[in-house]
């Protein structure tokens, strides 16, 4: 398989510019980076540094103005809207700051949602897979709860279960702990670490050093350019399994 040898993400000289009225805004100015399978990368930077734009491009929600983006060896640039949607469904998992669960919908139904759009018939029993994913994030007891019956940390766990249920090549998390208190933040980051230990490749956008400390590598953006790309020396680890977390 070609994809297994190639890096999960390979970006060359990526630029993204917006037109705000008559003014051209360069959100990304020539970003190049490569992420291999099994990495856990933090994307750092102040607001306006371009990290969200990078995330949208990497998540195939947005297209670069110039430059090349290979996702698992596949050039994303020339693909049309439907093909991008299929890639999001097949190869990517998203975790958002605001959880983005469907209201009035149970945890199992929320987690099963991406499988609804699967076009390859990969998932024989979506409900069973959703239940397994929820058990994996430690929510085996809350299967039929709706988002408003769950705490913030639990909602984010549902969102993570939804992101991993299709076994994506890459899990993209955009400020996943932004809405959570510090204790829950640690729990969620521990869950990410556990998933990473199981082989899930992660890219986490954050502006908090404490969150980045859980990752293996930190990329720092400033004004749309990479200004730092370093491995994390003293990685934080929490001695607890995700299944045991409340």
């Amino acid at each position, binding site marked *: 398989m070609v994809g297994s040898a190639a890096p999960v993400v390979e970006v060359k000289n990526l630029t993204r510019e917006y037109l705000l009225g008559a003014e051209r805004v360069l959100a990304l100015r020539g970003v190049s980076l490569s992420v291999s399978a099994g990495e856990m990368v933090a994307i750092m930077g102040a607001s306006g540094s371009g990290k969200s734009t990078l995330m*949208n491009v990497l*998540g195939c*929600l*947005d297209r670069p103005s110039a430059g090349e983006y290979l996702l698992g060896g596949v050039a994303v640039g020339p693909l049309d*809207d*439907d093909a991008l*949607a*299929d890639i*999001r*469904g*097949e190869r990517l998992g*998203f975790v*958002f700051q605001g959880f*983005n*669960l*469907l209201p*009035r919908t149970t945890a199992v139904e929320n987690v099963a*949602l*991406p499988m*609804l*759009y*699967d076009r390859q018939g990969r998932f024989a029993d979506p409900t069973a897979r959703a239940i397994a994913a929820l058990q994996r994030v430690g929510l085996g007891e809350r299967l039929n709860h709706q988002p408003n019956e769950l705490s913030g940390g639990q909602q984010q766990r549902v969102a993570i279960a*939804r992101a991993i249920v299709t076994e994506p090549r890459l899990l993209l998390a955009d400020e996943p702990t932004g809405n959570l208190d510090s204790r829950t933040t640690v729990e969620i980051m521990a869950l990410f670490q556990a998933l990473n230990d199981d082989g899930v490749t992660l890219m986490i956008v954050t502006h908090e050093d404490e969150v980045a400390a859980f990752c293996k590598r930190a990329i720092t953006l400033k004004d749309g350019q990479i200004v730092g790309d370093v491995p994390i020396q003293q990685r934080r680890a929490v001695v607890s399994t995700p299944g045991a977390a409340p």
Partner: protein
Amino acid sequence: MNARALLRLAIQNVVRNPTRSILTMLGVMIGVAAVIIMVAIGQGAQGAIEERIKNLGTNMIVITPGVATTAGVSGGAQSMPSLTIEDADLLRKDAQSLVAVSPVVMTRTTVVGGQANWRASIYGVDPSYAEIRDWQVASGRFIDELDIKGRKKVCVLGATVASRVFGEDDPVGQLVRLRDVPIEVIGVLKAKGQTAEGADQDDVVLAPYSTVQTRLAGRQFIGQILGSASSPDQLDLAQSEVKLILRERHGLSESQPDDFEVRDQRQLAETATSTTQVMTTLLSAIASVSLLVGGIGIMNIMLVSVTERTREIGIRRALGARRGDVLAQFLVEAMVLSGLGGLIGAGVGVGGAWGVGRLTGWATTVTPSTVVLAVLFSAGVGVVFGWTPARRAAGLDPIDALRHQ
């Protein structure tokens, strides 16, 4: 996404917002119910009118004498005394498409009765005349074969003549005098009312044609031969058969025109039917407006719903939904809303039509095709009015949609 998943999703969304869904469906519900009730009233009226036309004898064929032309001057309708009893006998024997034939020997005289005199038309007819014209007796009996053979001096009175001559008394068994001939009244006909032209059909005395021809003096002629085709589709065949037989019998060569005329009642029936059809169309058109308003209601709610659920759309797009998936989701939801409204409306309409029938005594007819059509049309309304909101939902940019608060 397959059709089943789409349908399940749509039903889930409809069920999760019961109040909103019912309010949305209400417009279509009322529209469909109105259409069904209006069409039921229209079709009921049509049925009633058709029944009355059948009363005139729908399968009836009327053969009248032709127009005589003397030295270039037309004698007007029925001026040629070309029809005979023998013509009628021959038609009865040879015309296969006619189930009944009756000559009508016409004359006019004063009916002298117990209390009053009344001038009326006297028709000499065959027993089958009653069947052809679908005319029953109210009391007594109709003329039979024995009366014809025996040239019996009997008659059946039309309702008008009966009341004019005998008032409230029962005429059956009494005598009337026609041109000084005493004739026994053996029956009274049911009232048939006026023709479209205003002629009183009940102002008539029916007697055996043999009696009228032989016993009553005075000017008389065979004004008509009436025939009855076995069914309305046989009318054309019956007409050409009659023409063939009569032309041969009258010894007409190819170049000579018919010396008689053959007509049927379809023209009249068509006119009346088309009138009620116009009425039905008009009623259902008015009712359709409410269905249209219902559709606009659905569009309105769906547009609001798209704005409300922008974030949901963004989530679905991020998780792999194509634009087409989102389009289908909202379209199917609109269709489910309007189709469900249509179904409930159909129930209300059928009940309402029955209720209107009970309350007003009108004949209301609900046909299955009306119900099916109304429900399908309402689902169509969902497609038409769901299209714009669904397009708007599908056109949203995923990033903007995800950011939407």
